[in-house]
């Protein structure tokens, strides 16, 4: 993990890049020129107070709330004008803040829906079960009957059952018990070791600093800081000024 934290960001190319992205929701102007990059095979953490625009950024990348202006590049392809279906098929997999579990479907059906051919690659499935053993146990249960942590595991499993270019995860630790958060951290570490590119919104700084290689901090719909996570973790003053001030403003 230390090696991952010390990975030199400049040595990697960018898988996803946002440039001056503006997003409106109805009459409200939410994103005011968001620009940041997501290096390939790294975990990028998007941090910031509530209402800073993190979820809007994720939804804009997915095409759920289209960008009003600006560019979103996946590798070298501009995706800001594509619809959600095409973006998803380009390899952008998304775990939304509310997890988006189909409560009336079984765990197996939820995961099967995300497979390309309506059947499982057994090796991949075994790997997913290794990450989230609880899912194997409740494989034929209605997903609506799972606990909050298990639903989060299911949402992530659904997003990784097929290989993807990038995984967008919105606040995976939200509302979960510390023990569940630990098991999620373990799973994300394993995903990270498998060179999965991840963009994660997270409020839990311990989780963010443990997993992240790269960090972008948002406030009021703008990116106010971007660096590698190791240097940000080392700079307590910056943490206090960016996250501390944000917290005070929020409170």
């Amino acid at each position, binding site marked *: 993990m230390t090696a991952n934290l010390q990975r030199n960001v400049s040595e990697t190319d960018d898988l996803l890049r946002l440039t001056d992205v503006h997003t409106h929701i109805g009459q409200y102007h939410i994103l005011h020129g968001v620009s940041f990059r997501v290096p390939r095979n790294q975990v990028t953490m998007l941090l910031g107070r509530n209402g800073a625009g993190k979820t809007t950024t994720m939804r804009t990348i997915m095409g759920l709330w289209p960008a009003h202006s600006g560019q979103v590049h996946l590798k070298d392809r501009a995706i800001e004008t594509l619809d959600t279906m095409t973006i998803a098929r380009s390899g952008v997999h998304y775990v939304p803040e509310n997890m988006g579990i*189909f409560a009336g479907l079984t765990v197996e059906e939820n995961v099967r829906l995300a497979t390309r051919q309506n059947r499982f690659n057994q090796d991949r499935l075994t790997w997913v079960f290794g990450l989230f053993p609880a899912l194997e146990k409740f494989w034929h249960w209605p997903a609506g009957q799972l606990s909050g942590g298990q639903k989060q595991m299911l949402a992530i499993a659904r997003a990784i059952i097929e290989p993807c270019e990038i995984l967008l995860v919105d606040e995976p630790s939200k509302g979960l018990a510390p023990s569940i958060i630990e098991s999620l951290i373990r799973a994300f570490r394993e995903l990270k070791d498998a060179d999965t590119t991840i963009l994660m919104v997270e409020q839990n700084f311990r989780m963010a600093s443990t997993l992240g290689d790269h960090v972008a901090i948002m406030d009021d719909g703008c990116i106010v800081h971007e660096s590698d996570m190791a240097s940000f973790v080392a700079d307590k003053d910056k943490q206090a000024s960016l996250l501390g001030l944000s917290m005070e403003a929020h409170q």
Partner: protein
Amino acid sequence: MTTQIQTLIKQLTKRGEPMADNSVSVQPLSHWHQNATVQSGLLLVAFAFIGFVLIPDPAAWMTLTIAGLAMGMMLFVMTSGFTLVFGLMDVLNFGHGAFISFGAFVGFSVMAMFPELIAAGSFWTHIGLFVLAMMGAAVVVGLLSWAFERLIIRHVYGNHLMQILITTGGMIVAEEMIYVLWGHEERAWLKPDSFQGSFQFGDFVFEKYRLLAVIMGVVLFILLRWVFTHTRLGLLIRAGVENREIVKSLGFNIEKLFILVFIAGSALAGMGGVMWGLYDEVITAHIGQNLMITVFIVAIIGGLGSIEGCFLAALMVGLLTNYVGFIFPKLALVSTLILMVAVLLWRPKGLVPVSKGDS
């Protein structure tokens, strides 16, 4: 002793949910307590039992039960499309009744093309004609509904008020089209000989066409259930009814799915129109409009978007209408409304509620 009873009550009322990471609370009765379909099925059986108690003559009860089930099956066929369209597309299609009427007239025309087969054909020939009429209605109404979706519905997604106004207008236009194509007069549509009359089994009399309607309804329900539970399309529809956005995020073309479901739902309405037309033996351009109130009631009682709920609600409405019509004729018209109010007080989202975007 008190502690033991309290422990027992606690165990019996505990929900069978997974608790922590991979543990689960064991609850032997949880399935029966929590499964809305099972509960509603038991309620349907209770309906039939209450009818049996209140109707003194078992032969009359059997006749009414078969009539109720037949009516229920036809209502199910007509309502299943409406409830799916609302559940998946969030579209309130007040023009659904026009598809029922169109289906009835198309079926009438298809059967009218083979007068000699109707007059001299065997039972199986008549069955073949009946199925052909239903298929014809499904195809024509399906094509009409495709045009209806492209021209009208697609412009009012997400706006319920506009949907109500524009689909009501669409229904009026469709009824006028029926007048233009088939004339203003109501049409008598007599059943083929094989479907006429009844047969006796012991003390019980069974009307042939009603039994046929029950069988057709069961076949269609099993077919729909199979599609929903055994095909990727069914899985997608069930998922789409719950959360369209996530279906899109998984890389599926939700717009194509919308159109497909709209066409299939309307085709089912057309098939229901054929079944109802032959049941009533008279068809008018208003046949669908007249049935729409009952269609709404069935969809709401069943839970919008739920096929199982729609099936059970349709059977309940069919049984109740027939039982009450026999026991308290003056209450027959309001009985279904009373049932709807009672069900909504018990289950505000209907008998078998569909979770909408909650996780």
